[in-house]
């Protein structure tokens, strides 16, 4: 049993992700299986009030520790272990564990009485083999482990205040051969040349009834507990881990790890529909992770995880969704987390884990006092062989994140919802992107990061954030997610257009068009997320927000001149978005016709944009105003008074107000006395990375000194000094090297869109209505647009 535990621990340390199992071949099996020796049969039941780990006198306690039967409370778990020692002095163990639960009721810190991190339970049956041989990778004093096992009927749960979320019906198979354990200098080194296997999680379930602890079915109704969906996948890893004594300060320990993902897949299942990440490869290097019992920046006792650096790269070959398993394309991420300075302030990477969670949710939960510094990342997206790289992504931040499993209702004055609640308290964070590269990593840095706005991302964003997101179990039907969230942004600065923050000579003031002095309150109720036969479907029950842009600045985000203040209010009911794999397909750009010949004859360009890409199907239902906070409106304030510091004072200027903007179906067709509002604004947006036609607009050399005449077409050419040249009459071969950009095909329709009134508001004279209603009916707008980054 001891050896088994050591072996299991060794595997956990060597594989930060779960490893998979495959069968040993017959030769290996013959060598491992206990052919003779002794057989131990045990009924194991064990309890302990507390297990303690002490570091420089500071303690962390694992409380209410129990090992026993998972299904029969208070009873023991059956163990059968066959032990054999072979001629080469190897120890062979064949083991069978049935219906075992290992559980901690709570995890507490000595310096934080009255609160805990919550409980963890792990149910499983286990069958496998373990061979422990003398001699490691660095000499005879080490060990070599060969193991293969299958876990069935697994549950892994997290529990706070009687509510729990758990992985249910877990099957895990792992094979790891030739795992060595050595002491090298002062480091315990574990080397796993190959860990392979597969996993399957039948469901991820939620319960708000303490009596359901560890059950698949609700004890009162007999129904299966609601599920977020299931998971499955495979993996094939290589890993090397070093553990050294000594924390960041005094006692503690240090962990270093190098892992290579030879291949992997990750599949999320929702009612028989899948969102699949396939052909995953990558590697990462974890350097100098220290684990201490320490105090965070506020002097709070915590389990401190402080990082030297983490760098690596991941590639997802295919992201599939929908019944046909179509792919939206390939994604690659390279990253480097380490200490760095942003906007003149240094950030590091550290998490200080504490108990308690949200103070109103009860005594159990997690509080993560976190700080991060993503010094550099490149994110690339490739579809149908065309690649765009969002280069120089940086992110930094500091703040508290709380985690609780909560149930619906108000507690101590705070509204909670069913599900896993992630809270944000005083999070001060930001990110920025330096520019775009198209084609390859060494292509010239270009502008165009504002193209991300089409996908709902700002190219740069700094903010202070509070709020919460609660992930509930169950979607619009069956499995899936239900989200309730409240987010508040303060002192935000987001770029609509952004120039590089580093042009090669270090950090500079990032020029752009900024929504600065931003306050943003956003609330979502009963938003469901489901994987469907079509794709990924998101349906908002009710959503309302207010975006108050104190100054729309141009140039520097803090000092740039301002166009005034803008306030945008949104109130939507029943809006939805579906992400569908595949882009626009065949398109006639600039003309009409369903065939290449017809398109060309009409003056258009026939474009075959391929099978991959992304299509978004949006339905936005703007509801009529129900209050001053729940309505759709747009306001622009200028001519504000100035305070002693020279800053404009809000609500002292002149307003232009577009009030109560709403959609309608154009009449009351169901006879309930109010206009129907089910159609909304429907937009289909297909986005592809595709070659685009760019024409020189003036004679002479351009910004990079490349000569050409007005009307010449830009053709990419790696042999040219700037990476491109201008061609007056491009050949067919030239046309295959047009620059890459984003090609967007959009269609937007609405039956009726109204503005109730447009007012001019004087600071002393009050509001005067200028327009008593605007009604737009029967719009169907189609667009084929290409957006290409330019240097």
């Amino acid at each position, binding site marked *: 049993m001891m050896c088994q535990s050591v072996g299991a621990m060794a595997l956990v340390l060597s594989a930060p992700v779960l490893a998979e199992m495959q069968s040993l071949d017959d030769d290996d099996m013959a060598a491992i299986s206990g052919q003779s020796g002794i057989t131990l049969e045990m009924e194991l039941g064990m309890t302990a009030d507390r297990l303690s780990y002490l570091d420089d006198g500071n303690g962390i306690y694992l409380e209410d520790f129990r090992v026993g039967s998972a299904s029969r409370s208070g009873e023991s778990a059956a163990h059968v272990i066959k032990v054999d020692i072979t001629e080469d002095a190897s120890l062979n163990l064949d083991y069978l564990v049935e219906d075992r639960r290992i559980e901690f009721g709570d995890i507490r810190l000595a310096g934080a009485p009255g609160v805990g991190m919550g409980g963890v339970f792990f149910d499983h049956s286990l069958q496998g083999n373990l061979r422990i041989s003398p001699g490691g990778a660095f000499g005879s004093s080490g060990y070599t482990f060969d193991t293969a096992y299958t876990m069935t009927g697994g549950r892994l749960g997290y529990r706070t205040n009687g509510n729990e979320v758990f992985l249910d019906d877990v099957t895990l198979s792992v094979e790891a051969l030739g795992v060595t354990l050595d002491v090298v200098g002062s480091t315990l080194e574990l080397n796993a040349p190959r860990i392979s296997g597969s996993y399957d999680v039948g469901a991820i379930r939620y319960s708000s009834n303490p009596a359901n602890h560890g059950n698949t079915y609700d004890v009162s109704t007999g129904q299966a507990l609601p599920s977020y969906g299931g998971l499955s996948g495979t993996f094939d890893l290589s890993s090397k881990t070093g553990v050294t004594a000594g924390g960041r300060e005094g006692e503690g320990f240090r962990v270093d790890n190098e892992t290579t993902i030879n291949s992997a897949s990750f599949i999320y299942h929702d009612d028989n529909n899948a969102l699949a990440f396939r052909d995953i490869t990558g590697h990462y290097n974890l350097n100098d992770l220290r684990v201490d019992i320490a105090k965070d920046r506020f002097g709070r006792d915590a389990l401190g995880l402080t990082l030297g650096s983490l760098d690596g790269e991941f590639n997802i070959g295919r992201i599939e969704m929908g019944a046909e398993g179509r792919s939206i394309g390939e994604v690659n991420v390279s990253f480097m987390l380490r200490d760095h300075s942003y906007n003149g302030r240094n950030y590091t990477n550290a998490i200080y884990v504490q108990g308690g969670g949200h103070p109103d949710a009860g005594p159990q939960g997690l509080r993560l006092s976190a700080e991060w510094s993503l010094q550099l990342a490149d994110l690339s997206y490739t579809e149908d062989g065309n690649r765009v790289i969002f280069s120089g992504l940086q992110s930094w931040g500091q703040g508290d994140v709380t985690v609780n499993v909560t149930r619906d209702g108000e507690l101590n004055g705070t509204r909670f919802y069913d599900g896993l609640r992630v809270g944000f308290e005083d999070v001060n964070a930001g990110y920025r992107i330096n520019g775009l590269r198209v084609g390859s990593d060494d292509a010239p840095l*270009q502008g165009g990061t504002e193209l991300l706005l089409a996908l709902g991302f700002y190219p740069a964003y700094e903010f202070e954030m509070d709020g919460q997101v609660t992930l509930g179990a169950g979607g619009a039907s069956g499995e899936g997610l239900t989200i309730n969230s409240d987010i508040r942004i303060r002192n935000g600065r987001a770029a609509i257009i952004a120039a590089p923050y580093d042009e090669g000579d270090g950090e500079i003031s990032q020029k752009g068009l900024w929504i600065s002095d931003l306050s943003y309150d956003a609330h979502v109720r009963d938003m469901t997320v489901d994987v469907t036969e079509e794709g990924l479907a998101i349906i908002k029950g009710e959503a309302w927000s207010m975006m108050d842009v104190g100054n729309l600045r141009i140039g520097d985000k803090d000092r*740039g001149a301002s166009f005034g203040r803008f306030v945008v209010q949104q109130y939507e009911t029943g809006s939805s978005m579906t992400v569908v794999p595949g882009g626009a397909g065949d398109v006639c750009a600039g003309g009409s016709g369903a065939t290449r010949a017809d398109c060309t004859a009409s003056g258009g360009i026939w474009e075959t944009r391929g099978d991959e890409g992304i299509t978004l199907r949006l339905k936005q239902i703007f509801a009529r105003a129900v209050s001053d906070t729940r309505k759709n409106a747009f306001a622009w304030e200028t001519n504000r008074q100035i305070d002693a510091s020279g800053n404009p004072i809000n609500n002292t200027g002149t307003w232009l107000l577009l009030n109560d903007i709403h959609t309608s179906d154009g009449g009351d067709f169901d006879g309930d006395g109010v206009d129907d509002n089910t159609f909304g604004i429907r937009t289909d947006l297909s986005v592809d990375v595709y070659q685009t036609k760019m024409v020189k607009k003036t004679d002479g050399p351009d910004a990079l000194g490349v000569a050409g005449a007005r009307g010449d077409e830009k053709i990419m050419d790696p042999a040219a000094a700037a990476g491109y040249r201008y061609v007056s009459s491009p050949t067919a071969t030239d046309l295959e090297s047009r620059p890459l950009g984003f090609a967007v095909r959009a269609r937007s329709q609405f039956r009726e869109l109204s503005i109730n009134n447009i007012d001019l508001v004087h600071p002393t004279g009050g509001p005067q209505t200028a327009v008593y209603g605007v009604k737009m009916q029967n719009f*169907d707008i189609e667009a084929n*647009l290409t957006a290409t980054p*330019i240097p």
Partner: protein
Amino acid sequence: MNRRYCQAVLATLLLLAVNQAAGELDRLNDQDLSEVSGQGGIYLSGDISINEMGGPIENSYFGRCDDPDKKCGARLAYRLKEGGGWMVLDEIKGDFAFEGLTLRVRSIDSGFGGDGEQFNGDVMEIGLPDTVRFNDVRFRIAGSNTFRPTDPGFQQTDIFAVEMQGEVIMEGNLLVFPTGNP
């Protein structure tokens, strides 16, 4: 269609849209552009059509474009007096295409007859596309007693109709200056 007239109209509309800012059409060559910072941006081309086959409403008034008894264009109505009649842009349809609309932030600290040095700030630069092609763009201006043409007692008086076909040359840049008291 007088191309220069259209250019002026569009530029005026853009200037009205940015109201507080001052706009300027100024054709810079690439050499000039190379001397200013903040070059990154995007180059936009494309075509946009409105109600090519009709809109999403099908009732006694609106329908598909191949139905001669129905209007297939879009409709926009507004009124300037409470309880008054509606000014209407009706039967809006057509398509247009452009190539080379650019968008970027630009720093100005020289030129413009000495005004640039005095301004010494950043502006939004909208690089106008050389050519905008209009194809069968049309709308009708009318007065109506109800905003919905399907409302009881609906009456409408058409005032005039506009049709646009052909190309408009638009050269230079539109610069949007933040000025005044925000």
